[in-house]
């Protein structure tokens, strides 16, 4: 290193001449030896920034672990936790071939073939690696902290991606923005052990490797992107986004005349290898050649071959006229053959049409009319402006500015990020849940805007030196002198303006950081299984009723008991209560769910027949009337009616409404006041005074006094009600003996 050897020589000369100022000299030279060259300073700065961002991304997600405890949140992560537990206990082959008879009684579920194993395998590998290093942690701790760990890794990938698209400054800003962006934090807090935790990392990695492959044309990077795609397919069903965005990008490049050998190598390698690797996942199977959603990629693949063929023919032929006719014939025949093949495949049924989940993204009104289960999930609602603002804050301003900079400097990489940003933002507008997929693109494009603006402003600050140099050279003529004078006059104004604007930029970024921290702390760190509320004196009250009920089930019911509840709670009951359930969150069998919905909305006698046919021993309902908890089963009741009525026409939604309005007070419809769900939720509630000054039986979640207070149950008996009446469990009585 140049910086170090020179002081060494001068040090030896100094000690040769004098001896007394030895100490001062050595300390002085140690400071001098620390002086790095600019390139090394920049590298040190970059590495330290990335290190701090890595740590920041991890610790910003730890609010709920510090406030409550290290536990799994929500509903879906409990299934993932249960399967990971099974994987670590029994090994990979048992996991891959697992048939679970504890859910969807009496049908069972082929778990090995109906899940995306990427998340579980990743957590299990981390667990085994830690055990190998003799850190004996519990698998639950690994599961809880997997999401923040992968969020930190995503910031690193974002840095490299930004460096690929624009420059290192944009990469650093992108890493910082994505580390704290609420749109990403919402699904990757500690405890949110869901597929998206790993999938966003895999998504960004695949995109980065593919763009790198297109930029360099190297086969190694294309191979890397194929493996990144394999990881994404193993992790999340959203891989369909990649397999449609990449061909769309290739198509746009072909249309804008940017066909090149690099693109050919990158896309072919990624498509073929990625497709073959994706078929290794049993849940995906042969969908890449059979499903309508994947046909776009195959079509673009064939189009690329046609382009290559035409390029080769053009190179061989020297006659342009002949080539034009040949081009015409080939293009029309290729399109014709492709169209006929697609038609035959679709008509014969070999190529299945688009599934409802993805079709509702293209036609948002489809789910509302045809598939009530998809429409009932709150995450699937379209997005309002406030959700965007909540999750993005100033990135919403920086996004169009970043698009402008990308359009100013079009290249293969910027075209990609623009397409990714636009398509993902459209889908985020259709479904709230997909804000997560749009977040990396929005952060990257905003980073480009920030980086370009800051570069412009700082270059304004630096021009002073250049102008003073040109001013110092002798200029002949008065015009040059006058221009020098005007430049000198505007210099301090420009410099002050630039400094003021830089301060403004940093102010905006600091407000972004404050907003993100507040949103993370208040909105996105609740475990959902433990509820919190503010008491009368402002203190925090914790409702742990869910876990209380599940542990009661675990300890007080026979091991072969079957529990009937609405499908929301299925995963949690199987994971924590360790009992068989009738329906759970997988929602793969609509008729089974409709049967449960029918039972919940029928009179007690008909419901008893259905429960006997399903061998139900216990019924679990969630009731928020005492605490004011608004996500309880009475508020979800209309969805039970709709889903049940979708399969069994005997259940009619207008029977439960009064003038189109859903009521539970005295004016409610008689069918509503006597159905099973009403009885189970409000049993003995008529005697309870919930609020000071209100009559007994006042439902705090609906804000009304209930209509039917005198409830008698004939075929069920109350088994357990939790301390705040949130979860209520009833035992199904065996049929009376005939005398």
């Amino acid at each position, binding site marked *: 290193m140049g910086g170090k050897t020179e002081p060494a020589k001068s040090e030896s000369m100094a000690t040769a001449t004098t001896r007394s100022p030895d100490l001062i000299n050595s300390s002085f030279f140690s400071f001098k030896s620390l002086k790095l060259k600019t390139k090394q300073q920049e590298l040190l700065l970059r590495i330290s920034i990335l290190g701090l961002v890595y740590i920041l991304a991890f610790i910003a997600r730890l609010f709920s672990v510090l406030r409550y405890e290290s536990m799994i949140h929500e509903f879906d992560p409990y299934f993932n936790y249960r399967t990971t537990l099974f994987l670590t206990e029994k090994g990979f082959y048992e996991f891959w071939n697992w048939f679970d008879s504890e859910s969807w009684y009496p049908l069972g579920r082929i778990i090995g073939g109906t899940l995306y194993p990427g998340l579980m395998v990743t957590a299990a590998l981390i667990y085994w690696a830690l055990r190998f290093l003799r850190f004996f942690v519990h698998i639950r701790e690994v599961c809880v902290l997997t999401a923040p760990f992968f969020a930190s890794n995503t910031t690193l990938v974002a840095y490299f991606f930004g460096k690929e698209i624009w420059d290192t400054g944009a990469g650093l800003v992108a890493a910082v923005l994505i580390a704290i962006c609420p749109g990403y934090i919402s699904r990757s807090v500690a405890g949110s052990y869901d597929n998206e935790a790993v999938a966003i990392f895999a998504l960004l990695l695949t995109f980065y490797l593919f763009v790198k492959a297109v930029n360099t044309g190297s086969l190694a990077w294309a191979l890397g992107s194929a493996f990144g795609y394999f990881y994404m397919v193993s992790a999340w069903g959203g891989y369909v986004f990649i397999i449609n965005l990449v061909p769309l990008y290739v198509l746009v490049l072909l249309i804008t005349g940017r066909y090149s050998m690099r693109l050919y190598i990158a896309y072919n390698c990624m498509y073929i290898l990625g497709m073959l690797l994706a078929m290794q996942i049993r849940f995906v199977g042969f969908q890449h050649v059979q499903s309508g959603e994947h046909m776009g990629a195959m079509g673009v693949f064939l189009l690329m071959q046609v382009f290559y063929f035409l390029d080769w023919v053009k190179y061989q032929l020297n006659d342009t006229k002949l080539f034009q006719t040949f081009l015409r014939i080939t293009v029309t025949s290729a399109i014709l053959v492709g169209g006929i093949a697609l038609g035959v495949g679709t008509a014969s049924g070999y190529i299945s049409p688009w599934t409802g989940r993805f079709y509702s993204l293209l036609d948002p009104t489809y789910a509302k009319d045809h598939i009530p289960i998809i429409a009932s999930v709150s995450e699937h609602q379209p997005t309002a*402006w406030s959700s*965007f603002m*909540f999750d993005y804050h100033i990135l919403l301003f920086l996004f169009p500015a970043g698009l402008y900079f990308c359009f100013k400097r*079009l290249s293969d990489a910027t075209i990609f990020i623009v397409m990714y940003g636009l398509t993902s933002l459209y889908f985020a*507008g259709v479904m709230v849940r997909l804000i997560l997929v749009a977040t990396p693109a929005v952060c990257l494009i905003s980073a480009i805007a920030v980086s370009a603006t800051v570069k412009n402003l700082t270059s304004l600050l630096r021009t002073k030196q250049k102008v003073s140099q040109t001013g110092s050279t002798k200029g002949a003529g008065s015009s040059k002198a006058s221009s020098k004078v005007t430049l000198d006059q505007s210099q301090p104004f420009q410099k002050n303006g630039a400094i003021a604007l830089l301060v*403004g930029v940093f102010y905006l970024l600091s407000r972004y950081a404050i907003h993100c921290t507040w949103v993370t702390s208040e909105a996105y760190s609740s475990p959902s299984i433990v509820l919190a509320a503010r008491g009368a004196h402002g203190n925090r009250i914790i409702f742990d009723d869910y876990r209380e009920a599940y542990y009661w089930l675990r300890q007080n019911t026979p091991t072969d008991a079957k529990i009937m509840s609405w499908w929301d709670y299925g995963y949690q009951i199987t994971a924590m209560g360790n009992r068989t359930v009738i329906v759970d969150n997988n929602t793969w069998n609509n008729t089974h769910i409709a049967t449960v919905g029918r039972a919940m909305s029928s009179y007690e006698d008909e419901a008893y027949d259905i429960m006997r046919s399903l061998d139900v021993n216990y019924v679990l309902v969630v009731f928020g009337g005492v605490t004011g908890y608004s996500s309880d089963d009475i508020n979800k009741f209309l969805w039970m009616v709709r889903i049940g009525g979708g399969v069994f026409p005997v259940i009619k939604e207008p029977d439960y409404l009064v003038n189109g309005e859903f009521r539970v007070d005295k004016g409610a419809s008689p069918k509503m006041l006597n159905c099973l769900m009403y009885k189970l939720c409000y049993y003995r509630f008529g005697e309870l005074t919930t609020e000071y000054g209100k009559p007994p039986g006042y439902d705090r979640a609906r804000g009304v006094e209930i209509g039917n207070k005198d409830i008698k149950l004939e075929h069920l008996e109350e088994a357990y009600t939790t301390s705040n009446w949130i979860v209520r469990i009833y035992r199904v009585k065996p049929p009376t003996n005939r005398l």
Partner: protein
Amino acid sequence: MAPRSDSQNLATGSGVSDGSDQSSIDPIFHLLRILPFSFLRPPRLRLKIPSFTLPSPMTVYALILLTYFLVVAGFVYDVIVEPPGIGSTQDPVTGTIRPVVFMSGRVNGQYIIEGLSSGFMFVLGGIGIVMLDLALDKNKAKSVKASYAVAGVSSVVIAYVMSMLFIRIKIPGYLH
């Protein structure tokens, strides 16, 4: 002849018309030459297949800005959920109907007008930053650059202040 005007190829755009009939290797051309056009005489027309030119990047950018405005203003939410344009509440004392601009109570809900005005603020902020960049373009006159800079800064400031105001009205506990 229809096949003759067909021969203007798609790739290069400008026409290189086919020479004589006999040198063409197009089978469909030969088929058409024999079947209807051996006894039918096509009229002499001066038609050109419209050539397809790609729009400039800035045109595409303007269109994209329009779509961005629609998406961020919650247009899809408006189409599917069909909220009213503006909400209304009844004054408990006097009984008059008063309009309510911001739907309160949930983060993911809006009325149409509040969505459009917020979307406009976001696009205004973005355009402000774009104008700041245009202000630093060296090829323009100083007065133009100065007015771009002033317009850009004022746009960003107004957009940010209004957006913060909107979100504070909508979510009462914001930043507390």
